[in-house]
């Protein structure tokens, strides 16, 4: 009997998230993939999950899961895990994924492994690979508790692959009562993002504290427009409010794997490298020859971004025939 691997299914912007499909793909490779899908979801959600390898979907569309944070999903998941005893449950390292995994690990007293990049099952125990300290090392960990093993997995760890299939659907009941309604979601506000989204971009130009001010991003936007790239940023400049959070690349921001990543005035803190070191080509410009970013760059230029990037912009314009 293949082991049952559960995935916590998530919906964002009206679609099953890509990360959910990554996890379902992996789950179907390792064992029998089953998905827990709670709250509102698009009409084709079940079909989509089946295409990526889900054999079964545990489903409740009860609005309680949309209206109240953590607790309804926690009650429903804890009860189902108790009945069904899957070998592993996978969560994406997202806001909802981390919250539910955290809640279950405390409720079931089983712990959880976070920041997982890959995993394997060996004789009923799980071996998870965790890139440590931003990838300077790689560790493996296991969970010694009995029962279902909870793993919180980094986005983009696996390639989503459509294999075709029609999952069985089992309706699950939603919890009720005042106790699970203690944290209310009163309103959802969408903040529009300008330009291409970094998590989908094939080219990224990113800025860090070495730009010295928010105004430096104007130059990066000019370069990005010429390349058809998105603009990203480090946590330091997002924290300094130079640019919005949606642009943050790194362990606590977005994980990206573009064809090219041009790092401008970025030293390469562990937290940032964790989010971008899978890029196919990495180019870095920084004044500090000791900057860690140079250790992973295909081409590193030790120099002033305000000299190097304008020259690059000029050179691209010439090559494109925009100027002679």
């Amino acid at each position, binding site marked *: 009997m293949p082991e049952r691997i559960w995935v916590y299914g998530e919906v964002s*912007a009206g679609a099953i998230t890509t990360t959910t499909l990554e996890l379902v793909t992996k789950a179907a490779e390792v064992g029998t993939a089953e998905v827990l899908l709670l709250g509102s979801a698009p009409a084709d959600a079940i079909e989509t999950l089946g295409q990526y390898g889900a054999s079964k979907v545990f489903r409740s569309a009860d609005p309680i899961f949309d209206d109240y944070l*953590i607790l309804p999903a*926690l009650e429903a998941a804890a009860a189902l895990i108790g009945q069904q005893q899957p070998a592993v449950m996978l969560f994406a390292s997202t*806001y909802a994924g981390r*919250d539910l995994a*955290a*809640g279950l*690990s*405390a409720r079931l*007293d089983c*712990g*959880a492994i*976070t920041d997982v990049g890959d995993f394997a099952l060996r004789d009923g125990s799980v*071996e998870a690979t965790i*890139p*440590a*300290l931003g*990838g300077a*090392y*790689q*560790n*493996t960990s*296991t969970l*010694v508790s009995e029962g279902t093993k909870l793993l919180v997995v980094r986005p983009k760890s696996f390639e989503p692959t459509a294999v075709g299939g029609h999952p069985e659907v089992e309706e699950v009941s939603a919890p009720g009562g005042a106790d699970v309604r*203690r*944290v*209310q*979601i009163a*309103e*959802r*506000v969408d903040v529009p993002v300008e330009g291409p989204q970094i998590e989908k971009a094939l*080219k990224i130009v990113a800025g860090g504290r070495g730009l010295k001010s928010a105004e430096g991003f104007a130059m990066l936007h000019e370069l990005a427009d010429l390349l058809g790239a998105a603009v990203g940023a480090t946590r330091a400049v997002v*924290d300094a*409010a130079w640019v919005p*959070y949606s642009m943050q690349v790194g362990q*606590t921001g977005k994980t990206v794997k573009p064809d*090219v990543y041009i790092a401008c005035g970025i030293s390469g803190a562990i*937290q940032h490298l964790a989010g971008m*070191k899978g890029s196919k*080509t*990495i*180019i870095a*410009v920084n004044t500090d020859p000791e900057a860690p970013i140079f*250790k992973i*760059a*295909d*081409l*590193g*230029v*030790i*120099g*002033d971004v305000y*000299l*190097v*990037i*304008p*020259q*690059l912009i000029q*050179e691209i314009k010439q*090559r494109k025939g925009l100027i002679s």
Partner: protein
Amino acid sequence: MHVIVCGKVIPDTTVPLQIDPKTKRVIRSGIGHELDPAAAGAVEEALRITDAHGGEVTFITMGIADATIGIRKAYAMGVANGLHLLDDAFAGSDTLGTAKALAAAIKRSPFDLVICGTESSDSYSGIVPVQIAILLGIPALTFAKAVSVEGNSVRIQRQSETGYSVVTAELPALISVTSGINEPRFPPLKGVMAARKMPIETLSASDLGLAGAVGESAARERVLTVGAPPARTAGEVIEDGGEGGRRIAVLLAARGLI
């Protein structure tokens, strides 16, 4: 109003860290320590709430002897009480063990609000705050980028993939705050001087009734191996002698990127 902040004291973020292959933990000797910037943000948010609504802030940290430096920093910023969970028996705790110790320490006194950073700046697991809330049986409001307390309820703006959500709950509750939520105050010199004389209460695992329930032996997560990932083939690093921009363009063109 009594606000409790749980935060970490972490190795100096400017020094590259090494892992000891024997203990499988970060090598901490000879490395300076500082109050985690994420914890400083949580302290700042707590102080803003007690500044506006009255009451006091207690700071709790679990960590090695050097962690007192972070407690003194919290005192200098303006917290009223500092609590240090200090015991070799805590060493090697996983996230759940850490949450159990912090929850047990929080429960020792009545409180209205617990504030944590969403994740520490050195390990980023990001699950301890919700674990604490579940262990305490209080609501968790997570990933807050804005917080307001009105009467007996708390309201936050919770970061989401597409913007934010407005989330509310009754007190007592726990909130986790994102790193950019505020600019932590610079401790005034007077505060720094006074902080040196403030008492730091230390608690052991047995003080908390957790002997055998925390630390490496009780951890659900076991580190199996530590090692180096396959190295990325080293690229070329050049000094910009006035040709840096053009060199980048040449590489981009060679790889079909322009």
